[in-house]
């Protein structure tokens, strides 16, 4: 009798974790810009310095999100040959066999182009990225009526929005604001607290 194979194969959990972190970066960047920064810009009479700082933060968040997305797609591309081998098909067949795949490829491109534009401070890039971030992957199943497969992706998206935006708030937001020469008093107070 053969021993049961282990449930977890190392380093798969580590790779999965990196994938989660990478996906959180893009989702968090979009949440940070389109919710947090947008709300601050809209709610207060921010002066020119504040606006510049906020736009700097957004650009930094976009670059972090872009790095995350690139890692995610690089990891996917790396796994593609093994996936094709398991299914006894070619990589080309996997990419073209389902009508979902071209749609997903378009969404992936929209995220990359959108975040790339956002890094260069083009405002519309954020909306392009948002569409791609929300619909990339299993959420694209909405277009194909696969409603029962939405639970886990929505769970992950909400987690990404929460943790990813918090990450961006700390790294891109507070990091940029507190290190700015425009905000010496803020940095001093932060030093006391920290």
């Amino acid at each position, binding site marked *: 009798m053969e021993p049961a194979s282990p449930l977890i194969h190392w380093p798969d959990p580590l790779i999965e974790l990196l994938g989660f972190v990478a996906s959180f970066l893009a989702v968090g960047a979009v949440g940070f810009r389109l919710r947090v920064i947008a*709300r601050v810009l809209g709610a207060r009479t921010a002066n020119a310095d504040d606006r510049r700082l906020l736009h700097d933060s957004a650009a930094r968040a976009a670059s972090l999100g872009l790095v995350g997305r690139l890692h995610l797609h690089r990891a996917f591309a790396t796994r593609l040959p093994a996936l094709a081998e398991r299914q006894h098909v070619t990589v080309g067949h996997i990419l073209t066999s389902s009508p979902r795949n071209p749609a997903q490829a378009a969404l992936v491109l929209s995220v990359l182009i959108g975040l790339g534009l956002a890094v260069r401070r083009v405002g519309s890039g954020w909306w392009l990225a948002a569409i791609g971030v929300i619909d990339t992957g299993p959420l694209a199943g909405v277009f194909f009526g696969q409603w029962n497969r939405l639970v*886990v992706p*929505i769970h992950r998206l909400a987690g990404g929005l929460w943790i990813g935006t918090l990450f961006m708030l700390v790294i891109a937001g507070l990091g940029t604001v507190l290190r700015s020469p425009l905000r010496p008093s803020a940095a001093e107070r932060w030093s006391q*607290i920290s």
Partner: protein
Amino acid sequence: MVADLVNAFSSLALVSAGVLATFGVITAWQHLHTLAALWTTPYGVTLIVKLLVVAWCSRSARGIGVGRNPARVRGGRRQPAPDGHGRIGGRGGGAGDQRDSREFAQPEAAAGCRRWRANRGQSSESRHTSNGAVTLLPQVLELD
């Protein structure tokens, strides 16, 4: 501005956490079907471990939020709790930590809180009832 950023994030965090929890419960129900499966299947055991980690993180975050009240931070020094340990929530053990931080917070910290609220000209009731670590941050920082 930092306070504004954190405040803007708080509502997003609340909604996201709600959706996360709701769809997490649905996912768990789809996989487990029965309550007994929670401790009889590998998925259930893994889920329990995950929930324990989340609970521990939440408790730590609450402890940080409760421990950092304006009076203590603005006072610039840590005052001992009535039991002499000076502990705050989030580390150590059990309900005692939360009790310590509440005892610690009275009456000097409560007075500080009231003064702070009066200075800011706003009700802090909602801040104290939501996610402690996130919503208390602007109170601690007061960077504007």
